[in-house]
């Protein structure tokens, strides 16, 4: 017999046999998913049909080598997610159960990071209309998202907006729901993961932070007094795709075709071989694109330029007459 804790992440109530201090507590009676941390051990010897992988280059967060750092496999009853050097996560086909067997020596903080920032978004991709690799903040015009690859500045930009009072909605996992005749952004959980230099430059050197995982020097910042966090779902208004480094800040409206192709690239997907799911996701992305415009934002990747970038985005929102109509 062990204690069971309950938490909320992206509107999902998750019970856990281990403490997840990054998340807000919830009522276990409404639990929709159960997480169980198993004792450390060797990788599962189960018969696995490996069907997909993410490389380190795509993630940009790991620093050692260019191997597949996450492999996706099908096993009896669900999916196996194998994280290089860290361990296995088993996700039941109905996404009601998640078990983790870490490799010996994997710290709990790493297990929690993998659970909250990788596995849960993939699980949610099966339960929600769409889940994007995107940071998001709440402006007075509604929620805007910053979409881009790891390392392009999503979290930095979101933290910069939050520092100026725009509540954080997500750091890297943005759940969107089609409801009330529009789209709603669901807050993920408080906090952002930033490089130490970003903490120093965007916030303050002495801002309290915690470890993210043993394999990265990124820091987790979860003090909502420093970076305010959205109190609940809010209307979703604009998609900003982070384009390449540039000398000046420019905002360019994307043709819907380019927006769709970009959204597909940045949508979480637990099973990229599931044709029924792919068709549903395709329809969702098309609908989202028809209702929420996408823009490419080109800007200098200099901390000193962040106020100008914020100003350009806010000015763009102010001048966007379509927003008034919405």
């Amino acid at each position, binding site marked *: 017999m062990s204690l069971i804790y309950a938490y909320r992440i992206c509107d999902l109530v998750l019970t856990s046999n281990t403490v997840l201090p990054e998340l807000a507590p919830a009522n276990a009676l409404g639990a929709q998913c159960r997480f169980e941390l198993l004792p450390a051990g060797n990788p599962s010897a189960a018969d696995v049909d490996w069907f997909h992988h993410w490389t380190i280059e795509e993630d940009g967060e790991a620093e050692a080598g260019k191997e597949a750092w996450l492999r996706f496999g099908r096993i009896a009853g669900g999916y196996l997610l194998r994280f290089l050097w860290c361990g296995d996560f088993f996700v039941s086909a109905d996404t009601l159960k998640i078990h983790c067997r870490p490799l010996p020596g994997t710290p709990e903080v790493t297990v929690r990071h993998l659970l909250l920032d990788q596995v849960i978004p993939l699980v949610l991709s099966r339960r929600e209309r769409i889940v994007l690799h995107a940071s998001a903040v709440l402006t007075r015009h509604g929620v805007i998202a910053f979409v881009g690859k790891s390392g392009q500045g999503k979290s930095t930009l979101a933290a910069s907006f939050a520092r100026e009072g725009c509540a954080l909605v997500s750091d890297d996992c943005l759940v969107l729901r089609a409801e009330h005749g529009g789209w709603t952004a669901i807050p993920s959980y408080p906090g952002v993961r930033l490089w130490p230099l970003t903490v120093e430059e965007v916030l303050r050197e002495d801002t309290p932070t915690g470890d993210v995982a043993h394999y990265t020097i990124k820091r987790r910042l979860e003090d909502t007094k420093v970076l305010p966090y959205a109190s609940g779902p809010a209307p979703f208004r604009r998609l900003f795709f982070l384009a390449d480094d540039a000398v000046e800040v420019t905002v360019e409206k994307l043709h819907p*075709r380019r927006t*769709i192709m970009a959204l597909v690239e940045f949508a979480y997907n637990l099973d990229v*071989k599931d044709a029924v799911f792919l*068709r549903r996701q*395709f329809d969702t992305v098309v609908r989202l694109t028809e209702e929420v415009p996408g823009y490419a934002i080109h800007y200098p990747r200099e901390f000193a330029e962040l106020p100008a970038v914020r100003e350009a985005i806010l000015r763009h929102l102010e001048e966007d007459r379509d927003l008034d109509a919405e």
Partner: protein
Amino acid sequence: MTLNDSVRIPDQVATRKIGDETILLNLVTGTYFGLDAVGSRFLELLEQSGELAAAHRAMLEEFDVAPEVLEADLLRLSEELYAKGLLEAGS
């Protein structure tokens, strides 16, 4: 591939028209592909007749382009779509 070939969009490919452009998705491989307005028109004509030659004839009337240039463009696009499993040989 030549203009004499017949082709079709496989059953496992979903297409969605967005304005005058089209997105194709291969539901087996998960491959997405975007077509501009001209490519979309070509796909539309293929869906109607399945004949590359018929699509070529129709587009010659609609666009100001030399026959050999259009032929090269259509065959190149067809081969690309074929390679991605977004087009297959017709009957």
